[in-house]
């Protein structure tokens, strides 16, 4: 049951308002940059630096408090629940893009090709056919529209790198769990080793993904501008990649903290939060592999 006796209320803190301002600076810089205003990238960089500063400062403060033992069990539960709801919101963020993919393939493109529920649309795109992955675009068959899209030469296959990446990410889930067992057994070696392997697998995944993008852009002509196949491909894998990156950084942080003996068997919220996050990223990848690469 809840216990208020030991509840911890932090002192006034300057981190929230600094965070809010740095989000503003970051986005302001980004907007200027994509609109070709020259100071934009400088402001953007300043924003990134501010964010980095906050990560050290705010998280540092939280870690200190934790180590000083300020947090009772109640706080820890609040953190856990907070993280749970945060991941729920992330789930909905990814569901959005999966739903879009479904929408294009199941509803939009059939209509453009003369099937579906708005079949007459095909008179605007005479000759367009529904073949997924979309290597010919509706715009290709229409001379007037002056389309700015260029279709990809070929689509991404499911073998090769993506398959390897699936294996890598799945095993990273395994090594992370193994590390967790280590934590529970109070075996520091197993904990640190498990975490290091997880980080390594994360980095390899990241490298493969970067190579895949490079290959797609240069050899396959598969770009953001390649019509809806390219758009959905990069949107889904890109946001996933972003999460892998964030996850890897967090993993590195907790690896270092593990080496410094920050976690105990009963007090390791940070470890769990990162683990949940990583498993979530893992599950998203399986969805991606299935729906983006395979089907």
């Amino acid at each position, binding site marked *: 049951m809840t216990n208020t006796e030991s509840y911890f209320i932090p002192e006034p803190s300057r981190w929230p308002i600094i965070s809010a301002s740095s989000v503003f600076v970051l986005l*302001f810089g980004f907007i200027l940059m994509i609109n070709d205003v020259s100071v934009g990238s400088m402001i953007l960089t300043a924003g990134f630096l501010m964010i980095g500063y906050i990560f050290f400062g705010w998280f540092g403060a939280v870690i200190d408090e934790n180590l000083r033992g300020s947090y009772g069990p109640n706080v820890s539960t*609040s953190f856990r629940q907070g993280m749970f709801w945060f991941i729920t919101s992330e789930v909905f963020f990814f569901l959005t893009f999966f739903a879009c993919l479904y929408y294009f393939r199941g509803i939009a493109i059939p209509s453009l090709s003369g099937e579906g529920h708005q079949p007459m649309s095909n008179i605007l795109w005479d000759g367009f056919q529904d073949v997924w992955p979309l290597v010919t675009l509706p715009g290709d068959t229409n001379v007037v529209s002056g389309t700015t899209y260029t279709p990809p030469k070929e689509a991404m296959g499911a073998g090769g790198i993506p398959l390897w990446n699936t294996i890598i990410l799945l095993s990273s889930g395994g090594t992370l769990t193994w590390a967790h067992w280590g934590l529970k057994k109070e075996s520091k070696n197993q904990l640190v080793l498990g975490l290091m392997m997880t980080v390594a697998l994360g980095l390899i995944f990241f490298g493969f993904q970067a190579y895949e993008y490079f290959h797609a852009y240069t050899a396959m002509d598969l770009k953001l501008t390649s019509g809806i196949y390219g758009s959905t491909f990069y949107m889904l894998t890109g946001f996933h990649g972003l999460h892998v990156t964030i996850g890897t950084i967090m993993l590195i942080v907790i690896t270092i903290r593990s080496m410094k003996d920050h976690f105990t068997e009963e007090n390791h919220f940070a470890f769990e939060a990162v683990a949940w996050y990583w498993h979530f990223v893992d599950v998203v990848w399986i969805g991606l592999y299935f729906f983006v690469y395979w089907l």
Partner: protein
Amino acid sequence: MSEATAHDDHHDHKPTGIGRWLFSTNHKDIGTMYLIFALVMLFLGGASAMVLRMELFMPGIQIVDPDTYNNLLTNHALIMVFGMVMPAGAGMANWMIPMMIGAPDMALPRLNNLSFWLLPMAGTMLILSMVISYFPGTGTPVNTGWTLYPPLSVQSGMGMDFLIFTVHILGISSILAAINIVTTIVNMRAPGMTWFKMPLFVWSWLFTGLLLIMIMPVLAGGVTMLLFDRHFGTSFFDAAGGGDPVLFQHLFWFFGHPEVYVLLLPSIGVLGLIIPTFSRKPLFAYKPLVWFMAALTALGMVVWAHHQYTVGMSLDATTYFMIGTILISIPVGMMLMSFIFTMWRGAMTFETPMLFGIAIILMFSFAGVTGVMLAVVPADLQYHDSYFVVAHFHYALIPGSVFGLYAAVFYWLPKWTGNMYNETQGQIFFWWTTLSFNLTFFPQHFSGLAGMPRRIVDYSPQFADFNYLSSVGGMLFGLSHLLFLYIIIKTIKGGEKAPANPWEGSQIGTTGLEWTLPSPPPFHSFNTPPAIK
């Protein structure tokens, strides 16, 4: 008094100076900041509405050009929805929920401050989106309306980028606030505060919070795709590349429809306190009400496409969305029924909050039944995008959520400030707003049916009469808010001292923990978990 917080040295003396506000981790201070922010935004959003109504006073273009009109319209809606109603609701949640459930503060106090401070940042960004279009070479102002439909929003100038990121910041703020509130409710209840002892307001925020966690990311995803279409050459919303502009509408309304319940539910929660208080009788059918609120949350998530009956969905999809939408009358009807039968055989008095409460039940029912008319697809093919819709949603939004907030302000001002407001002035305000509100928006049903589309800067003389009434009403309605402001400021400054429990019936049928604290309450509400009956 025992050690309630880790640093008891900080107990009841508050931090001082500007830092108390900037760096606050106190739920009441943050709540106050939310409420003040909302009040400022009410006037900003209202001022833009006044310009709209002045422009529509008579046919012909008098004061703003078409793009400026639509830009003001967009900002009016976004400011009212995201800047006014949601922060006001969050401010009340901050103030009241910890007190109601017997907690010392919110579960994650620093995060709480972050969700607040993101709002002024978003506000600044919104203002930038408007100002930027006055610089040469930045393209058209944002003239899409708050729904930001592509391809028009892809055409818009740089202001749209600012608006997209405004939405992002607002979204982060709402998600963080929602996470915090849900966690507080689930984890911070005092021992003995079981689920079905929670006041309805707490329940309503639990569901609101869940909705926000599920819908805000979808809107964020949608506007992100918009940004990519604008700047990075993707074709999500362009048929030439295999995309579809309608997809954006699905994403927007997947967020947008539940959003209207986000706006509505906190006010329903407030009614669930006010009506029993002034009827001196426990809330009728409390448990079913909670269950139906849960049903509304679930059903509200799956009927979004009733905003897009005209986009040409398949017959099956259209039929599904129609029936789903009409069924929403069941949970909402249940809620209103609960309130009506709370009054039944009670002993009513008519202080300002109660007057608002009764008016809300009547006017919101009216909004609801016009909503059901809109839900009927063939008829909506006539109503859609006409002023009939504008009338429906202002009836839903203003009585449904804004008046609920006004009622809450009058109900809780004594608790917040320690002073009673002046009842006569409160009642004048009530009659003034209610009558002028109806004068503003009732005629719009007729102009809409007669064929006046929304989002137009100029119209034909055949719509002139109703618009004239509507504009006169709008001005009166706007002016009434000056009285509102006056009452609030005057009550903060002083007045008759309020007792801990100024309302005779406020603890009937509920635990009413908030009323056991003095008015105004101490800096930290409950240092020890209160005993619960």
